């Protein structure tokens, strides 16, 4: 019997992979993948455009998390919020970038696990507070920072927010992922208790904390290595 699955839409995936490997502008890659996927699924041009348009209108909520806080954060930056955050952390003598981020990782992961996912975030916490504090803790210890190291510290601050959020929120019972998993299993005739599913995530959540915290201590080690030999 011939397979009823149409494999042609996989071309869209191939376009994405090729585009990112060839470093084509990401927006163009995405649009090209949309076109190829649509044609491969034998959709007429108008139907593709209508699908794209409907999806674009439907997903307008996605950028709001980024956009809404910008005015308040930008205004506070103009009046010295980042400088203030840096002055506050420079007073703590034992603070290092790695230790500070481990504390943030713990706070982010446990608060997300309690359902408080909005306590962190890149526009609201990382850019105005966490990243400047991590940079300032290093500067208080060693003086000025080379740009490459400054960028590494910032990237680790953003990474720490992501790791804390992802592996914390999934052990919160009312989180969307748990609901999604329950719905899908139910459709296959498997009944699962959401609380049980949330508890099953705890070993991974702890492992994630340990691995990332270890990477943060490696960040401190790298900072020490690079700056002490100067």
């Amino acid at each position, binding site marked *: 019997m011939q397979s009823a699955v149409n494999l042609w839409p996989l071309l869209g995936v191939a376009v994405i992979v090729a585009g990112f490997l060839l470093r084509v502008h990401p927006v163009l890659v995405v649009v090209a993948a949309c076109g190829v996927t649509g044609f491969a699924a034998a959709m007429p041009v108008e139907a593709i455009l209508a699908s794209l*348009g409907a999806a674009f*209108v439907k997903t307008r909520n996605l950028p709001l998390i980024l956009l809404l806080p*910008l005015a308040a954060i930008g*205004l506070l930056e103009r009046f010295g919020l980042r400088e203030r955050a840096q002055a506050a952390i420079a007073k703590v003598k034992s603070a290092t970038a790695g230790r500070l981020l481990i504390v943030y990782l713990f706070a982010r992961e446990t608060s997300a696990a309690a359902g408080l996912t909005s306590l962190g975030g890149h526009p609201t916490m990382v850019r105005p507070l966490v990243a400047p504090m991590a940079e300032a803790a290093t500067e208080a210890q060693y003086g000025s920072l080379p740009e490459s190291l400054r960028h590494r510290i910032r990237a680790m601050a953003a990474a720490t927010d992501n790791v804390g959020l992802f592996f914390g929120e999934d052990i919160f019972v009312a989180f969307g992922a748990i609901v999604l998993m329950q719905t899908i299993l139910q459709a296959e005739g498997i009944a699962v208790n959401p609380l049980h599913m949330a508890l099953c995530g705890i070993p991974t959540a702890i492992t994630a904390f340990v691995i990332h915290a270890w990477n943060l201590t490696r960040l401190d080690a790298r900072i020490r290595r690079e700056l002490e030999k100067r």
Partner: protein
Amino acid sequence: MITLEHFYLLVGLLFVAVAGMNLVDRSNPRRFSTALFWGLYALLYLAGERLPPALVGVLMLLMALVAGFKGVAAGKAKVRPDEERRASSEQLGNRLFIPALLLPLVTMLGATLFKDMHVGELPLLDPKHLTLVSLGVAALVALGAACWLTRSTPLQGVREARRLVDAMSWAVVLPHMLAVLGLLFTEAGVGKAVAHVTTSYIGMDSRFVAVAVFCIGMALFTIVMGNGFAAFPVMAGGVGIPVLVGSYGANPAVMAAIGMFSAYCGTLMTPMAANFNIVPAALLDLPDKNAVIRAQIPTALPLLVANIFLLYFLMN
């Protein structure tokens, strides 16, 4: 009732301002195409649901072409001189933290305490989009507090927002366009095709191989789709339920929980999850757009391996 529509309107107006300010800014080398880009985005926020979907599709393509051929630029950022900023930071002191912390605090209160508050018959906050609407209210409260504290106007807030939007440039719309692609993938049946390929070409007669295929498949599929929620139904339906639960008697709750976490390992490694990985790089002024992904790989890969072993040993 405060709904998402109100904030679409607000964001639309913000983009009108960004477009207008760029249009008259002679320090922006591409001020016309930049204004066109943000103007189109403003239009889609202000009137998106009233335009025919095919037209929205065309406008989205136009935006992508403007961005893709480097039409989106920024004016010379008017950042306050360092000394002035430092002086104001000294003068305002720790009070500067108050509006910043109001953002998460009010969002949290909105999503918990005010969840059930009603004005007449209607709930105060739209229950379907509670967190986002709470965040929107929090952003306005924080802006108000920041204006009061610094004695500036909301207009100055809009100028600062424009500075940040300009700095992020087209990265602002990338997550949005990727979400569109994700929906199109679903419509075209990409998920089914991937599941078909993995299940028909990989032998899963060993328990360990089956667990590894499930976890790595989750991560790989998420790397391609940029979203664990898209990967989960495919891999759970293709391998998790029939093979792990069906043949090897795995506990479905463990299979699901660790499967989803394996997908998240993929999220940490993909530019497709732009709002987590690419936008922060732009937001933090990092020259390497993949810097956040590079920082996450040493966490994601060992964690994926750990997941395989956790699932292998915990599933029965």
